[in-house]
């Protein structure tokens, strides 16, 4: 079967810094992959390389068997099949919650306004924000904004969802509500790549854990295997640091 996401020989430099080193990664449809690793190891860059938000120096990125071109109109179209959720939410500040969710379906997918709004309301209900549709992003809490950001991405019916530390900018009491929405998505069979420090989510919802260090994928295993029997020194070191506090 064609993998939903395929990266082959992906390399990326920031100046002299080699941020992604020969990354090969295949993710099957419906698979939930949690990416772990120390700060600066290239997790965000990997995530952004998957929808080519970050240009890469070499290698192939395929979504559902189609190679993503480097730029242009075709890239925009293929990119709309990949949903992305950012650490800082990045909701459109001048648009209402409803408009945030309907904008891309109307402008990119050419869905009618009425249809887009119906779908948006369903999605907002699903993430528990149904009654705030006419507010502006800054009137919502961080946890609420992040749930809207998830609904906004889902409105495009993406084949894959990328999450780059979706709970890192949240106050602790709001982490749970966002993790819950993500866990529901995982249960519904969404293909997900999740960069996170939420070990609970990694243990419960992930099918695979990918551990990165210095721009390389050092381990790629099941959550159980990774947390109980990490095979590399770097992973043991990393786990020792995050699980002790």
């Amino acid at each position, binding site marked *: 079967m064609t993998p939903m996401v395929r990266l082959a020989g992906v390399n990326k430099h920031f100046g002299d810094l080699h941020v992604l080193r020969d990354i090969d990664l295949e993710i099957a449809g419906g698979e939930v992959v949690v990416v772990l690793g120390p700060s600066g190891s290239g997790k965000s860059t990997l995530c952004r390389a998957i929808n080519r938000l970050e240009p890469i120096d070499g290698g192939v990125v395929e979504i559902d068997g189609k190679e993503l071109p480097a730029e242009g109109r075709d890239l925009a179209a293929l*990119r709309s099949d990949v949903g992305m959720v*950012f650490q800082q939410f990045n909701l459109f500040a001048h648009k209402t919650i409803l408009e945030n969710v309907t904008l*891309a379906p109307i402008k990119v997918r050419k869905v009618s306004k009425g249809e887009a709004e119906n779908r948006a309301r369903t999605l907002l209900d699903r993430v528990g924000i149904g009654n705030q549709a006419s*507010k502006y*992003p800054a*009137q919502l809490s961080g946890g609420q904004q992040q749930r809207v950001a998830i609904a906004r991405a889902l409105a495009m019916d993406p084949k894959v969802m990328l999450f780059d530390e979706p709970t890192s900018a949240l106050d602790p009491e709001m982490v749970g509500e966002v993790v819950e929405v993500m866990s529901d998505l995982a249960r519904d069979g969404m293909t997900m790549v999740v960069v996170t420090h939420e070990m609970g989510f990694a243990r419960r919802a992930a099918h695979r854990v990918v551990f990165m260090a210095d721009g390389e994928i050092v381990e790629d295993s099941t959550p159980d295997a990774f947390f109980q029997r990490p095979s590399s020194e770097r992973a043991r070191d990393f786990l020792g640091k995050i699980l002790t506090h």
Partner: protein
Amino acid sequence: MNVLLDNLGEFGSRFLGTVELFVLSAVASLVLGTVLAAMRVSPVPAMRVAGTAYVTLLRNTPLTLVFFFFAFGFPLLEIADLSFFTLAVVSLSLYTAAFVCETVRAGITTVPPGQAEAARALGLGFGQSLSLIILPQAIRAVVPPLTSVQIALLKNTTVAAGFSVVEAGGIYQVLSERGYSTLVGLLWVALGFVILITPLTLLQRSLERRWSASSGGAVKAGAR
């Protein structure tokens, strides 16, 4: 007072010329300046180079030289036979567009980069990201300095007097030919410009007030 009343027709037709010059050049420079700003932030390197070259050239050329080029150089090219008025509009528009471009571009940089990233991640193209997400948020930062650019344009219309365009800056010549006091005449012209500029300033203030009272106010009130 006589200077004004005796020559009311002259003042009227010439200030009308000023207003026409201004309105046409303002619209053209806003459109062209925004297109240039889009070029300067475009992902296509050739566009960025062209935009930068245009702005560098026009911003560093005295307006009078731009006028000279279009009034005397352009006709030699024999592309089209345009009136001095049209050439004045072209000169003012091209010159002012460079300043509009830089103002809009500065406004674009006030919008957090995450906004454009989110737009791109959803599959919006460059033009859509710019027109639907970036520019609407940049406009608050852009309007006050843009009004100043347009006020400068209004005053710059007087340069056209030197190129036989009928506008207010040339009134003193007529007055001195008719034997009136040029000084008093010029004071009336200055007053005329104050009257023309006032609505621009008022418009600027009312837009600023409206924005801080509408969604912007709600955004501030709701911010944590």
